[in-house]
């Protein structure tokens, strides 16, 4: 019983990490109809930004966090303006190929700038153990991450569904021409979409740097771990990303606890396959989404 509870609670930070990276996939897809396979690398580079500002430059945690998130927002905006915007309207396959190329380029750039060594970032609460009822143990940082991600994803969901910006984002993605006729600045909305998605990914990168360390391989590890969660939940649903991340992380965790670590991927992705057979667009994805 204790193992089940500990697994359940212990996997929540992993689920939060998947969700934070995954929500970037959703926001970019909903806002620009682009499947961004560079999302994991954007998370890694956000983590490296924080490392450079906080550790190398010695700037305290909170100002460093703000500065690194601003830098990440700028990076996301620049990527859209310089690389994606001129290609808007092109085939989905071309845009996917572009993000795959971007993923490779960002990986090479990260390796050049930060080297191959593992870099660690310090976050408050990382070494503060909390003892919950039922002998459940978790760090204060883990609790903070879960709470923060829950708040952020709720805010994202509210923004996308009910805010004026969310409406403009949906309009810009579904029919850019019509949105322009209605006075929506599609370029600005899409640029902001990429900036927001990159900020979310960067927060995941910083958390990952505090709990596991930042290494060049971490970018793809994060991206490839989060993408199935998004597919499970539905490519265009923030709530789906959260629930998909939760299901995937918990299924993997329970597979490890009761079957062994080597079964984590088999069981996790087996569940993903089964769900996709029954719900081809994911648990909460819109039916009209075309699969590639």
């Amino acid at each position, binding site marked *: 019983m204790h193992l089940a509870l500990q697994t359940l609670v212990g996997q929540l930070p992993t689920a939060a990490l998947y969700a934070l990276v995954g929500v970037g996939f959703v926001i970019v897809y909903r806002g620009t109809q682009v499947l961004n396979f560079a999302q994991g690398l954007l998370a890694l580079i956000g983590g490296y930004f924080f490392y450079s500002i906080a550790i190398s430059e010695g700037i305290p945690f909170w100002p460093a966090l703000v500065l690194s998130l601003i830098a990440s927002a700028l990076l996301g905006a620049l990527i859209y303006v310089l690389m994606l915007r001129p290609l808007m309207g092109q085939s989905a396959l071309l845009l996917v190929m572009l993000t795959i190329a971007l993923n490779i380029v960002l990986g090479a750039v990260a390796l050049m700038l930060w080297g191959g060594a593992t870099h660690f970032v310090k976050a408050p609460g990382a070494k503060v153990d909390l003892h919950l009822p039922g002998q459940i143990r978790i760090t204060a940082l883990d609790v903070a991450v879960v709470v923060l991600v829950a708040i952020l994803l709720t805010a994202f969901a509210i923004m996308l569904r009910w805010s004026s910006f969310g409406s403009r984002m949906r309009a810009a993605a579904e029919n850019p021409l019509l949105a322009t006729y209605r006075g929506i600045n599609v370029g600005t909305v899409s640029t902001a979409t990429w900036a927001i998605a990159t900020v979310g990914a960067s927060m995941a990168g910083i958390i990952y740097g505090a709990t596991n360390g930042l290494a060049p391989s971490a970018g793809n590890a994060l991206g490839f771990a989060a993408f199935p969660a998004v597919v499970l939940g539905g490519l265009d649903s923030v709530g789906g990303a959260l629930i998909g991340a939760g299901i995937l992380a918990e299924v993997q965790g329970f597979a490890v606890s009761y079957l062994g670590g080597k079964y*984590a991927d088999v069981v996790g992705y087996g569940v993903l396959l089964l769900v996709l057979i029954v719900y081809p667009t994911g648990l909460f994805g819109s039916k009209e989404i075309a699969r590639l």
Partner: protein
Amino acid sequence: MKAQRKSGEHKDRGRTKKRTLAALPILVAVFALLAASCSSSSSSSSTAKPQAAKGGSYVVGSTGDLSGPAAAVGGALRDGYEAYFSYVNSHGGIDGHKVKLISLDDASNPTTGVANTKQLTEIDHVNAELVFLSTVLVAAAPVLESTKTPTISQGITTSLLQPVNPYMFAGDIVIGDEAAPVVNFAATKVTVPHPRVAIFSLQVADNANYVAKAEQLIKAKGWDLVNYQQVPMSATTAAPEATAIASSKPDLVIMALPEPWVISAVQSLRQQGFKGPIVNYDGGSAYSTLKTLADPNFYVVRPFPYYVKGQPSPGPEFTKFVAAAKAISVDPNRAFLINGYVQAWVLGHALAQCGYPCAGPKLASTLAHLHLNTEGLTYGNWSYSPNNHVGIHEIRFVHWDVSTSEPVPASGLLPIGS
């Protein structure tokens, strides 16, 4: 009609212009990719111009992962080779002969590794090759043997050492050989006569032999193996496996986890209340790992010392290593840097003993009889023999000293493989 044609041409030109503009970002991405790959291969080109040997130079080739999933280790090894050969060249070369280092990137892909090896052996005619990954080495071994190219490898496998292959030499401890010292050392750290033991390993083929030997030794000692967890390479964290291990209430954890998984594994075990000793193999023994964990009850196998600022150097060769690393602006404690440096150092000494010119069979024979006093570069000395192509025979266990905030030895010199 004419006006319509003009309008049509204008539209065509417009579309062409639009298509050209649309292609620009792709071109930018492609150029950036090319620039990145050029930069990654040229970073070693101060000593690494891809040219054949001429003017009395030795030529050493390397293939390793510089841009793929294991680039962190591959880049550090390459920097280690470069640090040594740059140092040697700046001090007059090996008996007056400079060394050209040609570093190629295989991105962990055996097919690319074989192509690199063919280029290095058949076009660049290298005197010797340094290979990082076992998968690449196994694929490239037939080429290296047919071209009689002596090879020192970080990731050599037991199958290439037993029976002895005349051209294959180990550049580090063979993972399987670490099991005995790890289990024997762990026995000195447990306080109960029949401890409950858990094994915690990365799910890779290279670790299978280590785990199998550890299981045998645990059984032979009458200990109780209560849990065995493998972390998949795709895992972002080893925390769930750590939870499973902690729940089995072990007294001791024997580990074979490299960075970055070792961090989340140890942190999660401690967080779950496991207070016993954790003994890891040398693959997860980076200075930054010990410093981050700052855990005095976490022990690692080390064949090489760490650089501790302000402390006396373990020997003159280690002092040279620190100077060489700093000369190329690399932290001497970067994980796997010293491994690459030592492999190049061993090869450099073999080339010096072989003389100039040095053909492959002669160099292989020289390596097979090489005995070196490493003067602080490794904990024990380095010696190959015709029957044993593993150069390291002694290691120490090291852990973090919380009072000095530095890594310190936790054991004397211990034999490996026994």
